[in-house]
């Protein structure tokens, strides 16, 4: 019995909040699940997860078949889908039907369990990351499933699990193109994960916490006031250099142009996903879009004040910021040529990594001096001189 309750209890301890009522707590309260004890909290958490997952699925459904086409069409000077339903939105239904009615072709010699699990990992890991993303407050309720103290580390760890899915899929497909794609995915992931985390680390030095809600709260103050309008202390404004590094590394992390090397349609057909069709293809596709949104949500939480924004409630603003990042990826897709794999590794290891560490140490020194912690600053300086 106790072994069964272990993970549940661990899950409950993750649900620590810093003042505001968390979404699962609020749900437990509203649905009167308190009487059930631990089980009630778990059920409330599941309901909350269901709600958030569906919001994300709706976003992904809008982004994949419809918004992507509309955005691309705008870049091309064309109209995009406009015949199916209002603004062409029914193309989402048409596409879903089309995809799901396709034959699921299993390549001969595929490494079966691995080949089947890979798409689930790709989609699941991206979705899992949202468990700790604070969507902002709506009527005093913090829309967030869990807020562990190590939230930032956790979300990076979850995001990198995607690579495991890519490698599994690529290797298990028994296709040379898939193999090349998965190898590229690993090389790319290693080259970009470190600069990504290090540039986010500079924010941690400012905020003094790894807890995502804490990072958001640290950005609520006003940085400067210009003509009555307060510019908030978002870390994108406080440390724009880190923000640019983070965005670049994030593009590579989510595998979009100019870093869509693991897929590289004109070179290795579709990379790791070459052999996937039907439902599995949908899962991989969904995973990619969720991954873009996760990248956008992270950028929003760490650098753009999370759900902060005027008038509209927090979750709406966070979703707007996620979409802004999505638009950015599409913009890059339309304009940037793809870099070559060796050039990408070079940019990652020789460029971004060095810049990210320089940024981290400079931030540490600055924060040390600003906060009067001279000892800390000198320690950081010693690191630099060393």
């Amino acid at each position, binding site marked *: 019995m106790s072994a069964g309750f272990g993970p549940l209890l661990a899950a409950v301890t993750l649900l620590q909040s810093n003042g505001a009522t968390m979404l699962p707590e609020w749900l437990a309260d509203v649905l009167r699940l308190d009487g059930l004890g631990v089980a009630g909290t778990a059920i409330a958490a599941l309901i909350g997860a269901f709600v958030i997952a569906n919001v994300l699925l709706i976003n992904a459904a809008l982004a994949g078949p419809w918004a992507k086409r509309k955005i*691309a069409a705008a870049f091309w000077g064309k109209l995009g889908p406009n015949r199916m339903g209002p603004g062409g939105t029914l193309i989402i239904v048409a596409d879903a039907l089309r995809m799901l009615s396709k034959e699921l072709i299993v390549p001969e010699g595929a490494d079966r369990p691995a080949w089947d699990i890979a798409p689930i990992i790709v989609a699941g890991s991206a979705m899992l990351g949202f468990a700790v993303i604070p969507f902002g407050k709506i009527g005093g309720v913090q829309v967030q499933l869990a807020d562990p103290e190590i939230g930032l580390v956790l979300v990076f760890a979850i995001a990198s699990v995607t690579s495991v899915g890519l490698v599994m899929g690529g290797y298990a497909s028994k296709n*040379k193109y898939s193999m090349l794609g998965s190898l590229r995915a690993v090389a790319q992931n290693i080259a970009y994960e470190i600069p990504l985390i290090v540039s986010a680390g500079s924010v941690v030095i400012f905020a003094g916490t790894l807890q995502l809600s804490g990072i958001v709260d640290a950005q609520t103050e006003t940085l400067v006031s210009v003509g009555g309008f307060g510019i908030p202390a978002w870390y994108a404004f406080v440390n724009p250099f880190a923000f640019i590094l983070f965005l670049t590394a994030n593009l590579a992390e989510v595998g979009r142009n100019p870093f869509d090397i693991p897929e590289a349609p004109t070179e290795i057909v579709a990379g790791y996903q070459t052999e996937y069709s039907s439902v599995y293809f949908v899962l991989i596709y969904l995973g990619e879009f969720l991954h873009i949104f996760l990248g956008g949500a992270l950028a929003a939480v760490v650098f753009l004040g999370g759900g902060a924004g005027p008038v509209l409630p927090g979750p709406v603003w966070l979703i707007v910021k996620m979409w802004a990042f999505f638009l950015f990826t599409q913009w890059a897709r339309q304009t940037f040529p*793809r870099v070559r*794999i060796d050039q990408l590794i070079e940019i990652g290891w020789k460029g971004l990594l060095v810049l990210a560490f320089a940024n981290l140490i400079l931030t540490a020194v600055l924060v040390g001096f600003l906060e009067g912690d001279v000892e800390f600053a000198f320690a950081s300086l010693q690191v630099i001189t060393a």
Partner: protein
Amino acid sequence: MSTGEEQSGDDAGEQAIEPTEAKVAELQSLLGDHVLDTEEHLNAPGIVIRPDAVQAVLSTLKEEAGYDHCSCVTAQQYPDRYESIYHLKKYADPTDEVSVVVPTARDDPTSESGAPVYETASWHEREAYDLVGIDYDDHPDLRRILLPDTWQGHPLREDYDQDRPQIVTLRENANPLLEDHRGSEEEGESDTMFLNIGPHHPATHGVLHLETVLDGEQVLDVDPDIGYLHRCEEQMCQQGTYRHQIMPYPDRWDYISAGLLNEWAYARTAEDLADIEVPEYAQVIRTMGAELCRIASHMLAMGTFALDINGDFTATFMWAIRERERAQSVLEELTGQRLMFNYFRLGGVAWDLPSPREDFFELTRDFLDGLPEATREFHDLLTNNEIMQLRTIDTGVIDPETAKDFGCTGPVARASGIDYDLRRDDPYGYYDELEWDVVTEDGCDNYSRLLVRMREVEQSAKIIDQCIDLLEDWPEDEREIQSNVPRTLKPERDTEIYRAVEGAKGELGIYIRADGTDKPGRFKIRSPCFSNLQSLPAMAEGEYIPDLVAALGSLDIVLGEVDR
């Protein structure tokens, strides 16, 4: 060879551009007793040599007489012999031509290979072996090239049985899924990977198959496997009458909107063969139409190259298609067709400009006026993009000497600094009356090939603009669109001619041997893409896969023209 040919040679001598006796004497003294006989082709003197002296003669001609361009190798069967003709030219002066004729015995058609002298002869001889069945001694790799390895017989031979079914069991075909470690030093275990790129692959621009050996991401060896789109164009042309039935075929060689350029290749060859004059007015229209085709073709080349580098249907591709679309609507107004124009006729063009003429001129001018802005956009998106430069500069390098050896022409040659353009060097149409420049770049890389195409678009626009001016002011009663051409053309038996024009992809040549009927006895197409594609291994070996794809894109091949 035969006496009949000698006579026709005399007739043809009047049509030939220059009297060639001095040249023949010079060549004879150079080659000594290798020369068995001489012939007179309409375009050049023909030197008949023994089949075992091919390499000696070709290397003498290349090294000492400066014939550095082996434009084409034609093979054909006569009742009493087989014949290979090496059409040699000079890059410095393509009007200085010579044909090396190598007759071989009917019962044992074996001839020495010219491939050790001219790299480009390798593929041409493979084609000759494939279709006509001539064996080339000392050839580095004499395999079939257009037809499958399992094909029985040689289709251009007289005794070829067309009705015999070509039944090939699956077992006889190489299984592409088998383990393959080609390119490795030792048998069995190795670090290399064999990869089939194509025939269905997003970057092959058609049905091209690249047999690639990879070491990690690096290309160790690449071997283009062509023939998937072989439609027997040469044989089909041999079954059509000169006057009308052949002209629609050229549209289908380079079908990427370069139709009029191809038609011109046939028109020029057949007009020179049958001694047909073309009115000046028609030449101006031809020139204008051809340059419109060149713009459309280069736009697509640029778009697909961007596609290969960007990897998605991105803005650059769509914008390039948009510009091509404008060129195409002008062409549609002119010819009534969007792709398969069939607009040229022997002795002129099918009809005059559409009326009202002012509307047509306005449409064309609008298109030309929009081009500088479009070009600026492409420079912003492509050539000035740092990632693009990072990707294309110093990748896919081919130096001028190698390019010449492979018989590269067109933008591929000009991007390697070879100043060679038939429009200027071997003038036809109205080009020598107009002001324009031949574009060259010295980079020899993918980037230069892109730049050459973009700059050539500007030059083509300049040509079209001048043509429009000319056409606007052309007196109404002098608008002759076709000269008087006999209903049936029967060029004299054994008249031979090889003529080329500057197609969108390079030198598009046609060899015709008349057999006294109203249909050609032998119709051979020299496709620029065929020769350019042959140079791909020289560009791509040692590079990464993305650069192989980029180099392939920069060659701008159309498989319809490669395979014919």
